[in-house]
């Protein structure tokens, strides 16, 4: 028998379940994680704390960078001095030349060394910090309440752990060093130029804003057209994604040409936007180059004027050459700095997002005197349990039932009635709003989470396998199991047969990027995983929904044998799975509306009987 309720077959996994009956204001919850309230100073202070033992590297990096920039700027002056020793044929002053050349031979390796030390330090520092930050942002997850995962888009959390952390390293650490050396270069160049000739230095300074102006004008324009291009690229990508993933459908309905037309329409718009964006942005380099070339020409002319007339200040030929080198390299940091500033802003935003995750409110830890559940018999007692994800929308009301060890309890009801929520409560994924749940007489709120969860074996409709081998996945709940035990569990779950047919048998990689298993096969692996753990209480939430009915019967059999004398709680859409339960609880709108065995419920002629009868309506 397939699913009884429309819509349920595609309600894939926990997120969808929660969306049906859980909080729906994801956006507001997620926005609490923005972290805009951290000031830049706070962010930097925390980052410094993260650098921890690597902090000396930071200092060393900055010192090395300062030294190498200063020495590097000195080099053109020394070269100028050397050139001044060689004015004409026959009059080269070799004795005087030795000085500058020796100095060059000493300074140049020092510059290189300084560059190397500062890059190496910053690299190490930023990667170590990234690592520490990333590890912490992952470690924090295990302390967060489950509601956090249900209400925050996983893509967003993932982006923080992967992308944002990287951004912090690249942007804040590398960016700051670049900013530092850029400013050093500008200041240093100004100082050196003024030491040669204040008037010529003023000429250079007066002309610089021109280049900056040109660069920033172009950047402004190109960022606008890049945004337009990106929007169209997104649109085109989205359309390609949507249609290509439905290509079989499109082919079988001969819709390819129609899709092609629409694709070409978007593509034509993209061409216009892309051509413009590319053209404008490609003008950046040539445009700053033309300004620089003009500055270069002016410096050359003014410099020569100084050499010839001594006005406005006396200069030697070598010093003109120094000026020419300066005017060449003086511009570079300006362009770099404007890039670094945007990078820094992005990095700061990323850092805020990461810290917001790190500071997300934790779940209350187990009490120091929490009860450790051991050798649980499986006596389950729900007493007047109330629960809601949102105070304004009560979900479960007054749920009371008792399961003696060895009983099988089935939960039946329309989608969104709160069946899955009961499982969330049992494992303390969520805490009750009222009433209590007891296991073997202990209130679960007083048990340690780990020992409580250890008592359960759980199979959900949402099959979760991690990327690893089949064997590792089955062994997940019991890492010390032998290969024989793993295979035995797979046999009982009727998974052994298909596993040995996989390319590498039990060593085949599954999970993301692994071999393609069907949904049914994935469910069988999850079942084998639980079979291996030998739990006191079994929770099955749509555990066999993708398995064909024949195999399902066989798996059910294996469960029955495993759970002999123990308790199980089953949520199912197929009534065949439910028929043999000791007690069937029918849930509607958050309350238990009917309870009893299959036969009793049919006799009552209520909702269950109606559901059951509707299967045969109009048959044949």
């Amino acid at each position, binding site marked *: 028998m397939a699913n009884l*309720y*429309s819509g349920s*077959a*595609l309600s894939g996994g*926990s997120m969808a379940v929660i969306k049906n009956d859980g909080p729906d204001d994801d956006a507001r919850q997620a926005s609490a994680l923005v972290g805009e309230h951290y000031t830049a100073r706070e962010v930097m202070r925390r980052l410094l704390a993260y650098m921890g033992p690597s902090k000396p590297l930071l200092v060393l990096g900055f010192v090395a960078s300062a030294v190498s920039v200063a020495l590097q700027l000195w080099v053109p002056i020394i*070269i100028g001095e050397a050139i001044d*020793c*060689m004015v004409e*044929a026959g009059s080269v002053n070799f004795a005087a030349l030795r000085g500058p*050349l020796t100095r*060059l031979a000493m300074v*140049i390796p020092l510059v290189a060394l300084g560059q190397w030390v500062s890059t190496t330090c910053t690299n190490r520092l930023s990667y170590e910090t*990234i690592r520490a930050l990333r*590890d912490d942002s992952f*470690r924090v*997850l*295990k302390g967060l309440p*489950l509601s956090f995962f249900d209400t925050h888009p*996983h893509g967003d959390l*993932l982006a923080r752990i*992967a992308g944002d952390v990287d951004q912090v390293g690249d942007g804040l650490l590398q960016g700051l060093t670049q900013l530092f050396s850029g400013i050093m270069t500008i200041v240093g160049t100004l100082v050196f130029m003024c030491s040669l000739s204040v008037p010529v230095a003023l000429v250079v300074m007066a002309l610089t804003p021109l280049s900056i102006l040109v660069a920033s004008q172009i950047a402004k324009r190109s960022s606008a057209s890049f945004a337009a291009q990106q929007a169209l690229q997104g649109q085109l990508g989205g359309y390609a994604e*949507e249609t*290509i993933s439905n*290509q*079989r459908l499109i*082919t079988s*309905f001969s819709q*390819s040409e129609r899709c*092609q037309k629409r*694709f070409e329409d978007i*593509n034509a718009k993209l*061409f216009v936007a*892309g*051509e413009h964006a590319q*053209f404008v942005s490609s003008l950046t380099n*040539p445009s700053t180059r*033309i300004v620089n*070339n*003009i500055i270069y*020409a002016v410096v*050359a*002319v003014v410099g020569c*004027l100084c050499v*010839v007339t001594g006005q406005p200040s006396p200069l030697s030929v070598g010093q003109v*050459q120094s000026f020419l080198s300066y005017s*060449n390299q003086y511009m570079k940091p300006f362009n770099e700095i404007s890039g670094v500033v945007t990078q820094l802003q992005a990095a700061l935003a990323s850092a805020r997002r990461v810290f917001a995750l790190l500071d997300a409110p934790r779940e209350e830890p187990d009490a120091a005197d929490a009860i450790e559940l051991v050798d649980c018999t499986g006596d389950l007692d729900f007493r007047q349990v109330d629960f809601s994800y949102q105070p304004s929308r009560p979900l479960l009301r007054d749920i009371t039932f008792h399961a003696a060890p060895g009983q099988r309890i089935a939960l039946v009801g329309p989608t969104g009635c709160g069946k899955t929520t009961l499982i969330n409560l049992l*494992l303390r994924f969520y805490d009750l709003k009222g009433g209590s749940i007891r296991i073997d007489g202990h209130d679960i709120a007083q048990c340690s989470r*780990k020992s409580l969860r250890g008592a359960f074996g*759980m199979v959900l409709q949402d099959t979760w396998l*991690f990327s690893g081998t089949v064997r590792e996945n089955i062994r997940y*709940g019991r890492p010390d199991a032998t290969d024989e035990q793993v295979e035995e569990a797979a046999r009982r779950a009727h998974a052994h047969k298909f596993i040995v047919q996989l390319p590498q048998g039990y060593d085949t990689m599954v999970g*993301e990027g692994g071999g393609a298993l069907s949904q049914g096969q994935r469910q069988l692996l999850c079942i084998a995983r639980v079979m291996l753990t030998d739990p006191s209480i079994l929770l099955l939430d749509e555990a066999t929904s*993708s398995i*064909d*009915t*024949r195999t399902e019967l066989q798996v059910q059999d294996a469960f029955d044998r495993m759970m002999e004398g123990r308790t199980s709680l089953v949520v199912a859409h197929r009534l*065949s799975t439910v028929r043999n339960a000791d007690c069937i609880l029918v849930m509607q709108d958050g309350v238990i509306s009917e309870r009893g065995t299959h036969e009793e419920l049919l006799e009552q002629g209520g909702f269950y009987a109606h559901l059951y009868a*509707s299967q045969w*309506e*109009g048959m044949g």
Partner: protein
Amino acid sequence: MTMLSLLRRFLPPFRNKAIVGTICKVVEVIFDLLTPMIVARMIDAGVAAHDMALVVRLGALLVLLAVVGYGFTFVCQRLAATVSQGMGTDIRNALYAKVGELGAADLDRFGTPSLVTRVTNDVNQVQVAIAMGIRMLIRWPFIAIGSIVAAMSIDLRLGAVLAVCAVSIALVFWVVMSRSIPLFRAIQEKLDGISRIARENLEGVRVVRAFGREEHEDERFVSASRDQADTSIAVGKLSALLNPSTYLIMNLGVVAILWAGSVRIDAGSLTQGEVIAFVNYMTQVLVSIGYVANLVVVFTRGSASATRIMEVLNTSPEVAEASDAVELPAAPAPGTPALSFENVSFTYGGQSAALGNVSFALAPGETLGIIGGTGSGKSTLSALCTRLYDPTQGIIRVNGVDIRHARLDSLRKTVSSVPQRASLLSGTIRSNLSWRKLEASDDELWQALATAQAQDFVREKEGGLDAPVEAGGVNFSGGQRQRLTIARALVGSPQVIVLDDAASALDYATDARLRHALKELSDRPTTVVISQRVAAVMGSDQILVLDHGQMAGLGTHDELVRTCPIYREICLSQLKAEEVDN
């Protein structure tokens, strides 16, 4: 190399623009190369002779060169943008059209994400490579070589120093980059691994906690992250060598030139201005080799993308229309079945047969139910009916014609299918329903919706037929989506309709009403119903039982219950014994 074949195919419409653009770039480069020479002349002729007029004239010449050079670059950048974006647009269209022609087997082989990446990202990479090619491929190598040549033309031996430095710098770039690029790739993969663990933990948070494996997951993550950091640091160490060593080489070269130059000046074979020109050429060489190295990266990426693009473009679709393909007849000749399978087998590339020797024949208007467990080959059979795949063996006929001899359009107009996965494309309800018949009237659409039991909820939607559908149809429930896809298949009155587990999300009562409505259609289509539910197939004229791709039985419900043990078992797993035997 594949880059070349890509160019050969897509460059021709833009050839002239590419050539003009390149020429413009060459002019600008020549101007740039002249600059150090002019400055040298300023110093040697102007300053030495105290000829300020000459200095100013040469300065004006420098400005003129800069301005005219800019004009040429302007033209070049403009043309480069047109050529690269234009080619990118053409490539994208061609690629997308090709994907539309691919058969299901090709689609399986490439995979959706990979095809999407090829259409989007790979084309962008190629575009960048083309634009860079026009703009920079000429500029920087030309400047590097031009500087060396210009230096050598002033003084051959001193020019040789420049050449040696250039070669050493290039060597440093090569050594560092050839080692670090693979490491960068490794870092990316390791980062993907870290993301994977994080994603698994977010999605599987319930399972991880239920099994109490939080610590274990922490260890997994931390060791992956440590591994990634170590590789990053290793790459960092390597690339940290690049700048210092090139700086060292270049400036030591300058020292050598100054020393050797001074000797030559003293001997009168060189002037001061020329030595300055040498120093300036040296700077240009260093800058340009840096750019060239950058270009190498862009081209490596572009060429990998070009390969991936050509791979798709060169695929000849497995399912193609025969040159002598015919229109399917409007109806079969009397006594000919509307749909028949004759010993049809199908194998997915080298594996065991997904379908083996399946035969059946359906008279017009008849219904065939197909039932079987997961992996029994039911969906494969449905895909064969519209030629998403061709059978490995055997013949499928529609209205008596072997479908391999039918026009693809005509086949897919005649045979309509509802796939297992109910998906809708973004647009409106109308745009999704009118696939089979663009000009379908409102009446026709409402009729199809009524048959598919979708009338009620569509009426309730604001906008009715024009209500928006979001990508994937996420604004509809699973059951609503299924009913809309059924309605889509019914528009334009198909002669054959294949429903592949198409009602799995419907409750039994709706499912039953749907089946009833299909039966009551005035021009009742020949129907194939694939299902896991006995209830959905038991009323069919014929039932085909599939077990691991093999026919385990063909007959009516009553016959099969008696003769086919697998069918009986399936029935017993879903119905009570007395219900089976009744």
